[in-house]
Structure formats: C-alpha cells, structure tokens
C-alpha cells in the first residue's frame, strides 16, 4: 500500500512538471502534497501529516494559483535542457549509492513511536537566532522590493 502511494506521488510529481496547462499542473501538485500528508500519517506522524495537508494543499497551492494570474492558462514554450536529466539521474544514483553503502551500519528500531515533549527546545534552541536572522533578512527583502515598486510607480506617474 505504501509503495503504491509513493509511486502515485512520483507520477504526480512528474506530471506537475511536464503538463502544459498551468491549472492542471497545480491540481496534480496539490494531490501530490495531499498524498504526501497521508504518507506521513501512515508513518504515525499525524501532526506532520496534518501540517503538510493544511500548509501545502491549502496555503502554497493558493500562492501558486496567484502565479497563474501572471503566467496564464498555459506555460510558455521553451527548449529543454538535456543535461538537466543527466544531472538529476547522477544525483539520484549518488544519493542511493551513499545510502545503501551506509544502511548496514544503521540500527533499525521499528518500535512504537514515542512523542517527546519539548523536543524542539531541548535539541534546537541554538538555531532560534539563525531563524530570527533569516526572518529579518526576508522582511528586509520584502520592504526593499516594496520600496523599488513605489519608486517605479512614482517614476511612471
């Protein structure tokens, strides 16, 4: 069942990148994200799965639909870059080889999932400053872009 789910996810991923019509591509992307959420729920990560469904199938897809208002019904035609598929295939093979060569040293637990409270605070409190810096830089980028747009509007008028 899991393999079928994962195969469907891969098929939808390829479809969302190859479809000519933008709305169809977004729909296949949304279904892919929904299936990924179901996959996480099947791994006993209910919260992560629900987050995936709410954030991706809800929020991100709406953002992408906003992009359709700029692009239009169909994606613009462009030449394919042949080296890209080779590059992706090599990266897939390299990752798989690295993983398979190290998997024998890993201890497979397969135990019941244990939820530890305050795990984030225990393990990742040191990255909060980094995240604050990222947030500030993103805010700065947004304000700068708004400033550029305002100046441009003034010039045009």
């Amino acid at each position: 069942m899991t393999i079928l789910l994962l195969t469907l996810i891969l098929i939808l991923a390829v479809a969302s990148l190859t479809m000519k019509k933008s709305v169809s591509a977004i729909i296949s992307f949304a279904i892919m994200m929904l299936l990924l959420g179901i996959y996480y729920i099947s791994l006993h990560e209910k919260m992560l799965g629900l987050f995936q469904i709410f954030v991706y199938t809800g929020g991100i897809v709406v953002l992408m639909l906003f992009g359709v208002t700029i692009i239009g019904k169909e994606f613009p035609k462009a030449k394919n870059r042949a080296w890209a598929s080779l590059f992706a295939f090599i990266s897939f093979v390299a990752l798989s080889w690295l993983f398979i060569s190290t998997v024998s040293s890993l201890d497979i637990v397969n135990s019941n999932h244990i939820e530890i409270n305050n795990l984030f605070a225990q393990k990742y409190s040191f990255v909060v400053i980094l995240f604050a810096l990222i947030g500030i830089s993103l805010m700065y980028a947004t304000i700068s872009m708004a400033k550029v747009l305002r100046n441009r509007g003034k010039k045009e008028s």
Partner: protein
Amino acid sequence: MSIFITQMLFAFALFGIGLYGVSSNRDFLRIFFALEMMLNAVIMMLATTAYHLGLSENIPLAYMIMVLATLEAGIGVLIFASANKISGKISPDEFSSKEVLQ
C-alpha cells in the same frame, strides 16, 4: 529493512525529479514546484528515518523545513510578481537586474 530502503529510494527519486525541474525549466511556477518537491523529499527522508530508526528529533527539523519552504514560496512569489510588474517578463532567465533595480 527492505521497506525502509525502498521508501528512502522513493525520497531520493522525488529529490531527483525536483532537481531536474529546477535545472531544466525556465518559468518560475515550475521552478517553485520543483523547489517544493526537493524540500518535501528532505521532509520525507526525515520522517522515514524517524519512523524506522527511532530518531524522534528529526520531526522538529521537518517542521522547521516546512516553515522555511512556506516562507520561500511566499517571498518567491512576491519577488516574482514585483519583477514581472516592472519588466513584464515571466521567465527568470529574461530578467535583468538593471531593469529591476532602476
């Protein structure tokens, strides 16, 4: 063991598809799709290893990546919309920094 390897291989395949999408496409919407796929492949790897290897600390990392992906999509669409409004073009290859920053 074998199901763990298979699930991880599927995650690598999704990452590969995302990488192909980022490097081959020329319109921003597909590049965003591909970026989200790559980030989701990483979340998938974290969730799979958390389940099979008992690494519960992977899950907070997965949430963090999800937050970053959302921010990236929001800011990316905003920047693209702004650049499109200024230059009137839809392919990132055609954007000129001079045109945008004038």
